[in-house]
């Protein structure tokens, strides 16, 4: 548990350094003033939390400041952290195995969000936890997407079921489920083609994958996870909303959180839709996909030293 927290924090270091660079000075101040609060406001807006959340935090800080003009930066950080922690109270989630094997995990999202890479990393994570995942390369649309997943599968030594480029993605998913069942895999990870949420036809195609999987197991897919790029802004909320409406999501995976963006959009998505954040991608290596920890995220974001969790 301890090491998990450390890895999460290390991965986030780069992304949070930036917020801290700007606010570290502020949070370190013995006494705040009007100018530093203005700076703080800028940093908060820069984190992509969304206007509502950023405004909520800054309003609380201002209120506290009015009551106590001697307030220090540390207190401001604590107020911000408290607001976020409260928002993210129910944001953590895990992938519990389903009653019937294989547990089917469907990865969906817009183009370039990182679904294929996440599929490989998730397989790696599941294997480390003692599972036997099978990869299903159902992105039959993008040129070379199948090769991309196959390269990962070979590199990490995973089994893969793939169709031909241009094949029916739902049919590949169906076959993959059958294969998983026959070969005794307890997890099936379905990588789908990227699609913008505004494309009606492509969204309908996703529905087909769901229906076809349900023919094998009425409860499948057990987890439909939206893969979201942390560097995107407010539109990621719209993406999540539409995918949720049309496909029914169980959670979110936030990728590329190792960049300098603070991934604040995950706060906005959770706030708007109440979907949990299952995992975050913290780097390019296979082991860089980690379960989301709200406490670690908030603490790292506001530069608060966090008491170690007892193992």
């Amino acid at each position: 548990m301890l090491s998990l927290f450390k890895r999460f924090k290390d991965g986030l270091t780069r992304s949070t350094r930036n917020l801290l660079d700007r606010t570290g000075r502020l949070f370190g101040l013995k006494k705040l003033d009007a100018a530093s609060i203005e700076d703080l406001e800028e940093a908060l807006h820069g984190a992509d939390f969304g206007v509502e959340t950023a405004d909520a935090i800054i309003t609380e800080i201002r209120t506290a400041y009015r009551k106590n003009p001697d307030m220090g930066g540390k207190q401001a950080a604590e107020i911000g952290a408290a607001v976020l922690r409260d928002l993210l109270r129910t944001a953590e989630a895990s992938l519990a195995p389903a009653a019937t094997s294989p547990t089917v995990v469907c990865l969906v999202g817009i183009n370039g969000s990182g679904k294929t890479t996440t599929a490989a990393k998730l397989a790696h994570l599941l294997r480390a936890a003692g599972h036997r995942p099978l990869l299903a390369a159902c992105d039959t649309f993008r040129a070379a997407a199948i090769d991309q997943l196959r390269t990962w599968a070979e590199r990490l030594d995973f089994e893969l079921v793939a169709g031909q480029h241009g094949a029916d993605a739902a049919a590949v998913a169906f076959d993959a489920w059958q294969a998983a069942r026959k070969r005794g895999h307890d997890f099936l990870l379905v990588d789908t083609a990227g699609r913008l949420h505004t494309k009606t036809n492509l969204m309908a195609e996703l529905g087909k994958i769901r229906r076809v999987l349900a023919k094998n197991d009425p409860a499948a897919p057990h987890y439909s996870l939206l893969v979201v790029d942390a560097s995107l802004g407010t539109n990621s909320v719209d993406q999540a909303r539409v995918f949720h409406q049309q496909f029914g999501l169980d959670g979110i995976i936030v990728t590329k959180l190792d960049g300098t963006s603070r991934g604040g959009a995950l706060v906005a998505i959770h706030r708007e839709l109440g979907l949990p954040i299952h995992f975050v991608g913290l780097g390019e290596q296979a082991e860089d996909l980690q379960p989301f920890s709200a406490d670690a995220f908030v603490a790292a974001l506001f530069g608060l030293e966090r008491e170690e969790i007892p193992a």
Partner: protein
Amino acid sequence: MFESLTERLGTALRNLRGVGRLTEENMADALKEVRTALLSADVHFKVAREFVERVRLSCEGQEVLKSVTPGQQVVKIINDELVSLLGEGTTELAQARPLKILLVGLHGSGKTTTTAKLGRLLAKRGKKPLLVACDIYRPAAIDQLEFLGRQENLPVHADRSSRDVPAIGRAGIAAAKEAGCDAILFDTAGRLQIDTDLIEEVKRLRREVQPDEVLLVADGALGQEAVNVAKAFNEAVQLTGLVLTKLDGDARGGAALSMKAITGCPIKFVGTGEKTDDFDVFHPDRMASRILGMGDVVSLVERAQESIDQHEAEKMAQKMRKADFNFEDFLAQMRHIKKLGSMESIIGMLPGMSGLKVGDEAEDKLKQTEAIIQSMTRQERLNPNILNGSRRQRIAHGSGTRVSDVNQLLKQFGQMRKMMKKMRGGGMRKMMRAMGGGGGGGMVPPGMRG
């Protein structure tokens, strides 16, 4: 859903209606709304602040305060300011021969796809492009570029055994020379702007190939971070322009404004779809409307033109003029409209409607109408007059509707035909023209009224 700026301003200015003009105080409220609208559209905090300041000065200069409709006046000023800011600089590419273009950007921004799209565009303009695969990291990135190259009939230079990116670039130039190509496009690996090793690599590639254009490929939905990304790439490889991708989504694209304002690099192209010809030169006015949530009528009209065959539309207009419009034509019309996208996405492009929710009801109604028509025999579709009671019952049964639904559709259809007859003397032609296009593409079947 975002409210459009117009609505936000409307709320902020509502109290002013009685007074009829703005005071400086109220103006401050209105500008706060502008700021919030910009932030919600992912415009960077600082850029938004400076922009609002510019708008404020502009408003003072133009005596908006005395205007009868100050709200609209303010929106117009903002729009004009946005267009001028977004549109500075040229979208033209350098004139060099061979023209060397380096494409850089974050992971998943769409560099490889953009390379192929830009190659296709240049080929259409009479150039002979060669694509060079410089992404040696992402699994199958070379395969993807080769696949796209084959699809577009463009040569691709790749070296799967080499790990030396500048050398690949150099070899690419030699290959282009040999093949007689006069445009060379370098597709590079996605990299974080803070990844020093990879940034060093692309700098070395830049020094080696001496590109005439260095384009940053960026996702149109980027958040506040867009500014740091653009700034860092600009410092590292001296950008000459920006390419915004995935603009077929519904992102407001405020990042475009931030990146433009911070780097001063013109936005040259936009990617608007999955097909290789979904690529366009940048139009600042459209982007401005988009950021402000003012609808995008131009895009809608263009989309309509794209998906409607001119010839077919002519034929349809003929039929309408003669009022021999039958259910076969009706079905064809419905399908044209469906091609434009969902009702919601169409309505989202109309000014002032971007926040409007279209219930599933309207979509369902449309589906129902289609089902009814499809349950008719061809003979019935061509000649609806033969639809007697038992035929109607069969159709209702076949389409899973009630006879009353079928009757209602027939009644609407009859009214439509009657209207067409009335319009027969030139009125129709005028009406069609007003709808934008010489064809029947703009006609809305009654089923769409929900």
